[in-house]
C-alpha cells in the first residue's frame, strides 16, 4: 500500500510538472504573439507615416514646380521678351557703329538662347499644354516631339483619358509616362513605343509597351526612376506591373487605377 502511495505521488508530481510546463509554453507563445502583433502594428504605422510623408513630398514638389514654372513662364520669360524687343528697337536706331551693332547681335543671340532655355525649363517643370489644354494635347505634343527624331515611333491612344478629370491624377500619369519614355530612350534601344488607355468598368488601364532590348525586372533599381513610378502609381491608388524578358525582348508596363476617385 505504501509502495502504491509513493508511486502515485511520483506520478502525480510528474503530471503536475507536465501541466505546469504546458501552461508555461502556452503563456510564452501567447506573450510572443502579443509582442509580435505590437511590433507589426508599429511597423505598419511607420510605413503608413512614411507613405504619407512621401505623398506629401511629391504633392509639395509638384506645387513648387508649378509655382516656379509659372514664374519662369509668366514673369521671367515675359521680361526677357520685352528686353528682346527693346534690344531689337535699339538695333534699328544704331546703324552707324558696326562694333555696337555686333555687340547688340551677340546680346540678342544670348537673350534668345536664354528665353528658349527659360521656356524649356518652364515646360519641363510643368508642361503648359497639360496645364492649359489637358493631358490629351500634352501627350500629343510629346508624341510629336519624339516622332520628329525618327528614332522612336511613339503612338498614343488616349481617347479614354477624357474620363479622368482630376488634375493631380493627370499630372501623375503624365509624369509616369515621362519616366517610362525617359527609360526607353536612355536604355531600351527601342524603335516603337505604344501607349494605350482603356476603360475597365470603374478603372482606367494604361499599357505602355516598347520593343527594346528588355531587362531583368528583378535587377530593377530605383535609379531607373522605378521609385518615382511606384510612388505616383500609389498616389493614383493603382496597381502596376512591369514585365520584361531579356530573351524575348521588349517591356510592358501595366497600370490600373480608379477612374474618378475623389480624395
Amino acid at each position: 500500500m505504501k509502495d502504491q502511495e509513493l508511486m502515485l505521488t511520483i506520478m502525480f508530481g510528474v503530471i503536475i510538472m507536465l501541466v505546469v510546463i504546458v501552461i508555461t509554453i502556452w503563456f510564452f507563445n501567447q506573450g510572443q504573439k502579443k509582442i509580435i502583433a505590437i511590433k507589426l502594428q508599429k511597423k505598419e504605422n511607420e510605413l503608413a507615416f512614411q507613405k504619407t510623408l512621401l505623398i506629401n513630398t511629391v504633392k509639395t514638389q509638384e506645387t513648387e514646380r508649378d509655382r516656379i514654372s509659372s514664374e519662369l513662364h509668366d514673369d521671367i520669360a515675359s521680361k526677357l521678351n520685352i528686353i528682346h524687343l527693346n534690344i531689337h528697337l535699339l538695333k534699328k536706331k544704331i546703324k552707324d557703329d558696326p562694333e555696337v551693332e555686333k555687340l547688340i547681335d551677340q546680346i540678342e543671340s544670348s537673350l534668345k538662347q536664354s528665353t528658349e532655355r527659360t521656356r524649356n525649363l518652364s515646360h519641363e517643370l510643368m508642361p503648359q499644354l497639360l496645364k492649359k489644354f489637358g493631358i490629351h494635347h500634352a501627350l500629343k505634343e510629346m508624341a510629336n516631339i519624339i516622332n520628329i527624331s525618327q528614332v522612336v515611333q511613339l503612338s498614343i491612344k488616349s481617347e479614354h483619358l477624357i474620363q479622368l478629370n482630376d488634375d493631380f491624377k493627370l499630372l501623375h500619369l503624365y509624369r509616369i509616362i515621362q519616366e517610362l519614355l525617359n527609360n526607353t530612350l536612355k536604355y531600351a534601344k527601342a524603335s516603337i513605343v505604344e501607349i494605350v488607355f482603356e476603360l475597365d468598368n470603374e478603372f482606367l488601364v494604361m499599357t505602355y509597351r516598347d520593343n527594346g532590348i528588355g531587362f531583368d525586372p528583378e535587377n530593377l533599381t530605383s535609379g531607373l526612376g522605378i521609385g518615382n513610378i511606384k510612388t505616383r502609381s500609389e498616389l493614383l491608388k493603382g496597381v502596376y506591373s512591369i514585365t520584361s524578358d531579356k530573351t524575348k525582348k521588349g517591356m510592358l508596363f501595366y497600370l490600373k487605377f480608379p477612374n474618378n476617385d475623389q480624395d
Partner: protein
Amino acid sequence: MSLAIIMLFVSALCSVLVLIQYRALSDILKVFGIYFLISNCIEILALYLAENKISNLFLFHINTVIEFWFLVIFFYACDRKYGKPFPLIPVLLQGLIIIVANSIFVQKIDMFNSYSATLVNLVLLIFSFRFFFVTMDVDVTKELKIVKLIVSCLLLVFGTSLIVLLFSNAMLSISTTYQLYIWDFRGILILSTKVIFGLTFAKLLFESRSKTLQL
C-alpha cells in the same frame, strides 16, 4: 512488442533521418542533430547491454556528460542567433567538473548517477525557459518554429525526468513493479518526443526534396 524494442526501432529510424538530412540543416539543428544521434546510439547500446544482462550504468554517466555538453552548445547556438549568448566555456567546464566529480567521488561508475543527472536536468530546464523568454520578441521563422518545438519537447522530458530523478532514491525502497511503472511512464514520454523529433526531421526531408532548404 516491449517498450524497449519500440524505443530501439524509433531511435534507429530517427537516427537515419538525421543522417540523411544533416547537410541541409542549419547550425542550430546540426548541433541538436548530433546530440540526437549520439543519444540514440547510447540508448541502443544501453538496451542491447540490458537485454544481455550486462550492467549499463556507466552509460548513464557518459550520457549525462554528452547531454549536458551538446544541449548547452545547442542553447548557446540559439542564443547566438536569437539573443545575447552566455559564456559557453565556463558553463561547459563547470558542468563537466561537477558531473565527473560526482562520478568519481559520490556515485561511482557502477551506480546510477541521479545527483548529476538531476543537476543537469535542472540546468537544461532553466536554459529551456530562458530560450522561450529570449525569443519572445523574435519574429517567427521556419527554423524558430522547429527549434521551439524541440525545446518544448526537451522541457517536457527534463521537467518530468527531474521529478522522477528527485524521487529516484526513495523509489529504490518500493517494489520493482511500481518502479517499472514510473520508468515506463517516463519512457513513453521520451518515446513520444522522439517520434515528434523524427517527424520534424522527416518533414524537413520531404521539403528538401522539392527545394534547397534555407534554414
